[in-house]
């Protein structure tokens, strides 16, 4: 018996195109940041890590936040598409989270004098990342699709609390981590050239997120269709 993978293949095709466009946009953003964006007066060249770290952090938090939203909706509607999306977004969030959690310490070392500090912002971000590693491990450990979706959704819900809390930690606790310079009530506090490079990076990371999620969703759908065909 042959399985009709056409819908999954169409999604994977679209995902591949978006991923390639996202990578080109990321590469263009890196070139702009390195070659055409002025050097910051006090931090020197290390400040340019900002254009790698912040877009990755943005995409990771968006990915984890959307897992929370999809999880809440899944528990309400029990639509398998929401579970499939949550699984895709969680994995992509871990990919962006890996970039965030490696480039952060590389930036911290020359500026703070230490690779890591156990303050609230950094600790909670690491906790969120580990939570999603656990989320992925849980998903791979449960065979029954409905059970897996329900248990995962309960864990995924936690990001609805953690993501806004992590954003607020710089206001609520003493921390070495700088406060937001764009996502804040007043106007962004960056010179225009730096702001454009940052916004380009955030846009590129968002596009890459969309490509990764579309492709990963298509893979998840294809795997389910193949599994259904095998079970008859």
């Amino acid at each position, binding site marked *: 018996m042959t399985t009709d993978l056409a819908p999954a293949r169409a999604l994977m095709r679209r995902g591949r195109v978006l991923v390639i466009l996202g990578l080109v946009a990321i590469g263009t953003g890196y070139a702009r940041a390195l070659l055409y964006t002025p050097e910051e007066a006090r931090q020197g060249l290390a400040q340019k890590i900002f254009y790698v770290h912040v877009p*990755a952090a943005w995409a990771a938090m968006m990915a984890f936040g959307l897992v929370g939203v999809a999880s809440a909706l899944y528990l309400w509607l029990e639509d398998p598409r929401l579970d499939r999306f949550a699984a895709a977004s969680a994995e992509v969030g871990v990919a962006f989270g890996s970039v965030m959690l*490696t480039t952060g310490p590389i930036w911290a070392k020359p500026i703070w004098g230490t690779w890591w500090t156990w303050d609230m912002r950094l600790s909670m971000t690491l906790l969120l990342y580990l939570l999603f590693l656990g989320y992925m491990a849980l998903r791979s450990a449960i065979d029954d699709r409905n059970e897996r979706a329900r248990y995962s959704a309960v864990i995924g819900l936690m990001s609805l609390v953690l993501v806004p809390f992590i954003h607020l930690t710089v206001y609520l606790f003493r921390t070495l981590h700088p406060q937001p310079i764009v996502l804040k009530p007043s106007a962004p506090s960056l010179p225009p050239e730096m702001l454009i490079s940052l916004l380009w990076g955030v846009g590129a990371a968002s596009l890459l997120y969309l490509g990764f999620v579309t492709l990963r969703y298509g893979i998840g759908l294809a*795997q389910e269709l193949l599994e259904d065909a095998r079970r008859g």
Partner: protein
Amino acid sequence: MPAVDELPQNGGYMVAAYVVASIFYLIYTIALFRRAARVSRGER
């Protein structure tokens, strides 16, 4: 003679961050593309 403010020499950290980020994105892209190719052939 007044001291001249010099920019810190930390370009190596910048290069390391850009290289690490690029490697992560490329590895994840290759992994997803390979998985997509595998499931398209009907393998799980």
